[in-house]
């Protein structure tokens, strides 16, 4: 087994690492896009009455549709429907972002609604405007309180990203499956691949826990959730 590891995985480690870097790239941009879309959806849902329904529909659709279905839908239907995305990588990023933006929008919303009314009142009482209160008082606290959920969503994006191999994005999973199909030796390659994912995701969750414990003790935020 170790022997196989030596002549199957090690010679191809560059290939796997290249796949891992594509995974990182796709996840990074998907997550950025998800945060942007999620913030907009959340703010519209909370503060723009006449198109609130649209935001709710968007959020529910994103959360309720399985990521695999969204991926194929965006990849096969969007280019004809909207004229984009032009590449499979674009489709992968958009699909992953759609899914997460729904969850993030709800995370942000519960963060905003969970904030005690007194926090805003204190801002109003010293003469701050609603915009200043949003920017200086609400937003920072939502980010701090919700940091664990936000990071957790990052691990969900990484897990879901394993599926983008299906639309031929050369990510880690894609490279691994290609190697398996070349050598017909699944054990070492797939196990190493699984371990790479597990370690990456585990490290991120540990980091999230550390950060949230730190915030909790520093800012006493536990009471706000």
């Amino acid at each position, binding site marked *: 087994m170790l022997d196989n590891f030596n002549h199957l995985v090690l010679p191809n480690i560059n290939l796997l690492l290249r796949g891992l870097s594509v995974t990182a790239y796709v996840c990074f941009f998907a997550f950025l896009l998800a945060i942007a879309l999620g913030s907009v959806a959340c703010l519209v849902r909370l503060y723009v009455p006449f198109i609130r329904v649209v935001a709710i529909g968007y959020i529910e659709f994103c959360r309720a549709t399985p990521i695999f279905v969204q991926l194929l839908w965006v990849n096969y239907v969007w280019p004809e429907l909207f004229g984009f995305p032009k590449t499979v990588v674009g489709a992968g990023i958009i699909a992953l972002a759609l899914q997460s933006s729904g969850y993030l929008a709800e995370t942000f919303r519960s963060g905003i609604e969970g904030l*005690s009314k*007194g*926090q805003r*009142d*204190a*801002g*109003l*009482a*010293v*003469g*701050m*405007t*609603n915009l*200043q209160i949003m920017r*200086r*008082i609400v937003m*920072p*606290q939502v980010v*701090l309180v919700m940091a664990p959920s936000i990071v957790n969503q990052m691990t969900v994006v990484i897990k879901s990203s394993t599926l983008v191999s299906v639309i031929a994005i050369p990510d880690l999973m894609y490279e691994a499956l290609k190697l398996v199909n070349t050598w017909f030796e699944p054990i070492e390659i797939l196990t190493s691949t699984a371990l790479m994912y597990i370690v990456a995701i585990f490290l991120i969750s540990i980091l999230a826990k550390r950060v949230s414990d730190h915030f909790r*003790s*520093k*800012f*006493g*935020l536990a009471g*706000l959730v």
Partner: protein
Amino acid sequence: MKRMAAIVRVVELRKSFGPLEVLRGITFDVREGSVLTIIGASGSGKSTLLRCLNYLEQPTSGEVYLDGKPIGFRIEADGRRAPDTAANISRMRAELGMVFQQFNLWPHMTVLENVIEAPIRVKRLARKEAVDLGRRFLSKVNLLDKENEYPARLSGGQQQRVAIARALAMQPKVMLFDEATSALDPELTGEVLEVMRALAKEGTTMLVVTHEMGFAREVSDRAIFLHNGQIEEDGPPARVFSAPTSERCRQFLSKVLH
């Protein structure tokens, strides 16, 4: 020497929440430099009254004037009343300092940052100037040594003193205290009352909603007893606390004093 001008003037103030009328026509004046205490059972409308003064609650009808200027509405050229702009309401609020029952310090900012936030953002002071100002008020509430702590590290009494400094740092014309000691453990109320006493002595205009009858009696120039959203008793504390004319006020006092 206390001036006689009314700095706060409240005329026929009413406030309803749905079908529930919480304030039913409140009228009073507060002279500059005086301390007015508002007492009453819970649910009598004391907190709502304070919150209507700085427009955290929008009054259903009636008027509030600060230093002669209306809060929340303006008089148009043709004499009609129109709702004021959000910017003007914010400006008026900044002239009324408010201290809340639950402190409401911003947990993600240090003590000093809490105090200088509004002077920088609202008054547009330079940071250095705001820091000097903030430190001055922090030393006034005896917390200069805590300026870099986060609120979570402070006791309730200390948090409330920071909240007082935060309100004072805007150098408001009037200070509103909404049951400032009610959320505190009994052994911590003293330090907050001490600060409030010192402010009263300096001639700060204060409207104080409180359950601390001893404090109210000692510090205030005038006391109001609210019942069911109306002023039931109004006069110098010596009379309101010792010889109230209203039966309900007498009952209330005998309940809280014993």
